[in-house]
């Protein structure tokens, strides 16, 4: 999957889980937990939504690689 496609999926999922986050003006270095204030349930829903949209599953052992928006996009692009 291209990075653009991965980015679209990640942004759409963020919009769903945290509608108050402005994805038009998102700093991709933002940390999902601390900066976007997603809690563990939000995070679970985020990767679930991305999984449904792209087919890319993020197993728990890879959670450490997807702590930021850019990390998540790279992970989805690399595994899709």
């Amino acid at each position: 999957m291209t990075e653009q496609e991965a980015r679209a999926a990640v942004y759409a999922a963020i919009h769903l889980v945290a509608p108050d986050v402005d994805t038009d003006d998102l700093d991709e270095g933002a940390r999902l937990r601390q900066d976007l204030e997603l809690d563990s349930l939000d995070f679970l829903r985020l990767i679930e939504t991305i999984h449904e949209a792209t087919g890319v599953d993020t197993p728990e052992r890879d959670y450490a690689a997807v702590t930021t928006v850019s990390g998540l996009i790279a992970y989805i692009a690399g595994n899709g």
Partner: protein
Amino acid sequence: MGEFLMPALGADMEQGRVVEWLVKPGDYVHRGDMVAVVDTEKADIEVESFEEGVVAELLVEVGATVPVGAPLARITQTPAAGPEPAAPAPAEPAPAIAREAPAPPGFVSPPVRQLAHRLGVDTDTVRGTGKHGALTRADVEQAAAALSAAAQPPDRHPPATRTPVPTAAPSAGGRVRSSPRARRVAENLGVDLAAVPGTGTEGAVTEADVRRFAAAPPARETAPETVAEPVSPPTAAPTAAPVAAPTDAAERAAGLRRAIGSLMGRSKKTIPHYYLSTTLDLRAALAWMELRNTARPVAERLVPTALLLKATALAARDVPEVNGFFTEGSFQPSTAVHLGVAVALRQGGLVAPALHDADTLPLEAVMSQLRDLVSRARGGRLQRAEMADPTLTVTNLGDLGVESVFGVIYPPQVALVGFGRVREEPWARNGLLGVRPAITATLSADHRVSDGLRGGRFLARIDELLQKPEEL
């Protein structure tokens, strides 16, 4: 005859605003059917009926704010409370009940006459049960209910579903068991109820079922292919709860802050809190959870909170002094454990709706209900029982990164459990030092009900339970 009253949705609530009626006069409601949506300062809350019968009259307009306890609607029981025959003879049903006695035409007061007129009841055919045979409102409503029971087309009026038919969703006549709320949502989303798998009682279709169905079109089989396709944004937008206008949101946030402030102020004034803290070893629990999660798809994975909640609920069963209500000068322990789960709202503030019977639910159910509860709390739609029932509240601030939280008890509850963040700690054991994941559990409890010894026993019990996660 029953009245549907403005319920108290939490100890701090004094009034509420009706934002939506989910039924209309003439509708048949079962006990537990959602009847109205009430806006408190915390959330929009769906309120169920405690009566079974026909909605005779809505007494409050949408938008009206009324005090707790004010009647909102009147509900009349149908005369045939037992199993109803499928189709009573359609000819003259009302007189059949009414004319048993040679009723002397009783007195009919003007309001009762008006009511009868509105409900289409002929007062001459109804026997009065009031003083000197005077006709009461209840008489008229019963007659109306009888009329309604007999005359309504079967798809609007479902007496058939009350007979214990164990069949699942599509019952005889193609009717699907569902709440009025679910029907409305289905209509709005253009979903055919008959196609939705119901997860409610007796296969009833719930609102959550409808939303889930609408959100996930039958895409399961095509999943592998979607990898190659460009990502389709529609998965995101339409399922999100409508976001309120900014001013509305700001107003709500301010109202919520006031409500929290007044309740917590009252708590601190009336409840003599004491506080305990202990550090729990999570190594066994997290190792077990991670192993279990690797084999499961995202939707079935657990988070540590689910384990903590289950352990807390089980411990509360063993130490009943932390679970129940302190009202009118004495403590009533609760046999059920309904855990209030403090949910931070993204716009600020928090609500703590109940995860019912958390002690008896399997861990998977605790997890799925936790997710459902949190998403509805944030979407602004909770149910009355969820607001009123918590017997013990848990707050888990772990994701915000603090080590411990000492909460303020929600009256009339008598304790609050707090969990901090999971962290790695040096851990000395049997003369050896190791590193383990750990979490700080705290208890704020009511000294009128328990003391530190019992409170400490409760926290220790949570720790013990977490050492055998497979038994949770």
